[in-house]
Structure formats: structure tokens, C-alpha cells
């Protein structure tokens, strides 16, 4: 006789169609062309990347878009020791909060080429793009970030992004 039932799987699936707003569309169109595009708050002058429609601190709508560089600083990071569904990265790995040069907020990206015991705040990194013929309207155009052969950035330069 078969074993009694003690567990069941109850998968839940939701199918949405996502339509980005103006700021995210600006960001995604720039990504498709291999560029980083942020937006600046006219009140506090902070640059958001990825851009948003308005400044969450000032409550002001953004107007000016700002091209950003491919390089940045690790403001903070997480060492991931437990994989989740659909992740195929070898454990452990580092997810870095990267403050790209010219931006005032951070973006979460996979860090490669640096051991989990070597990563540190202030580390300078560069975004690595997937092959150009695969670029889409997606942040996934950035496969990961890698360390630059540069001295660490001073805390002062990224402390407001932590």
C-alpha cells in the first residue's frame, strides 16, 4: 500500500502584461542602445538610476535626464549562500549595490571575479554588458559587474547611498 499523503504542491502563477511608465521607458530604451540614463531631481539635485518618475524625498517630478558612466562604487553588498528558483549562479556569490558614477542611488547587480571574502564597500567596479546583438529593453543587458584595478573610493563618496 502506498504511503499516506503528507504534502502537496500548490503552484501559483500570475500572468501580467507590464507597461513601464515614462521614466522606466527612458531607462529601458537607453539600455537597448547600450547606455545608462538616469534622471535628476530639480529640487535636491540627486540623480536616480534606474530613473523614477519623481523624487521620493522631495515629491517633485523629474525633468532632466543624465547620461551615466559604466563605472561605479560598491556602496554595500550581500553574500548569497542559498540559491533561489531559476538562479544558476554558483554559490556563494555577491550581489552588490553599485552606485554608478554620477548617480546618487544604487543598483543591485551580480559581482563576478571577486571572492566573497575579498569584496568590500568602496570597491570600484565596471558593468559588463552581454553581447550587443542580444541587447534588449532590459537591465539584464548587464550580465554582472567586475572589479576595476583602482584604489577604493572614500566612504564620503558613497555613504549617502547606503
Amino acid at each position: 500500500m502506498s504511503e499516506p499523503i503528507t504534502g502537496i504542491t500548490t503552484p501559483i502563477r500570475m500572468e501580467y502584461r507590464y507597461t513601464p511608465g515614462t521614466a522606466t521607458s527612458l531607462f529601458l530604451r537607453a539600455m537597448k542602445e547600450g547606455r545608462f540614463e538616469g534622471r535628476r531631481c530639480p529640487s535636491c539635485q540627486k540623480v536616480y538610476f534606474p530613473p523614477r518618475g519623481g523624487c521620493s524625498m522631495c515629491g517633485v517630478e523629474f525633468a532632466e535626464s543624465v547620461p551615466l558612466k559604466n563605472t561605479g562604487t560598491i556602496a554595500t553588498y550581500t553574500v548569497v549562500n542559498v540559491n533561489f528558483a531559476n538562479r544558476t549562479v554558483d554559490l556563494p556569490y555577491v550581489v552588490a549595490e553599485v552606485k554608478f558614477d554620477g548617480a546618487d542611488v544604487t543598483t543591485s547587480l551580480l559581482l563576478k571575479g571577486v571572492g566573497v571574502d575579498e569584496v568590500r564597500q568602496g570597491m570600484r567596479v565596471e558593468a559588463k554588458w552581454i553581447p550587443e546583438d542580444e541587447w534588449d529593453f532590459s537591465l539584464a543587458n548587464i550580465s554582472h559587474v567586475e572589479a576595476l584595478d583602482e584604489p577604493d573610493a572614500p566612504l564620503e563618496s558613497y555613504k549617502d547611498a547606503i
Partner: protein
Amino acid sequence: MSEEVLSAPHIMEFPYTRSTGPVVGAFLTGLRDQKVLGYQASDGRVMCPPPEFDAGTNAPVDAAGLVEVGAEGVVTSWSWNPVPRDGNPFDRPFAWALVKLDGADSSILHALDADRGAISTGMRVKVRWAEERVGFINDIACFEPA
């Protein structure tokens, strides 16, 4: 400047695994074996599907004491589903029905495969068992006219 509005599918999936607990586990084990189990409550009524606690005494239900009810019963309420969704038991219009199985005093919700015009409250229906049963509510494929 007018540009095409960006739009993309966004699919969220949660592959949950759930522990059944003793009562639901026994109920599902029963379905796998083509038996529908209920619980005879402290007030004498038979509840199907069985609850995990007695509504009168709040005592935990002992899964070993579940009783078998009939695989036939009567429709106590129903609702027509004209536009089935993904994950529904049928890809054509069907009814959801509350069925009070013979020997039970409460009703179980499941799909009813019948023409809309043939369905009425009080009609006799029976379980159509799934060919392959795994210990899940879908082991009852649906109800059909008895």
C-alpha cells in the same frame, strides 16, 4: 515625439509545497484510494471535507476516526463558469457546484461537468474519479450527473 509604448509579459510563479497536516492528509489519501472521508462532529453532523478542529468543542480532529461518505450526492448550490481560466479543470464552460454527498451534512466544492440547462439545485450527481490519482483534490476529476 511619439514612440511605441513598451510592454512585456511579466509572469510570477510561486511553486509552493504545503504540509497537509493529519486531517487533510488523510482526506487526500482517501481520495487517492477512491474514498471520500468526512468527520462526524460532536453534534452528530458529518462534515465533508473534514475540518481540522471540531466546531463545537474546538478539539483537534483525530484523522483515524474519519468516516467514509458516499461518492454520490446532491447539488446544494452552483455557479456557471462561462469563461474557464488556465488551471481550471475544463477548458470549456462548466459549473462550480457545492455537493452534499450521501451521509454528509455539509457540502464540498468542485467542478460539475454538465450542460447548463441540465443543472439544478437538488440534482443528483456522482464523483468522476481521475484515471491517475496522486492524493490531491483533483483526484476527483469532477462531479457528473448521477
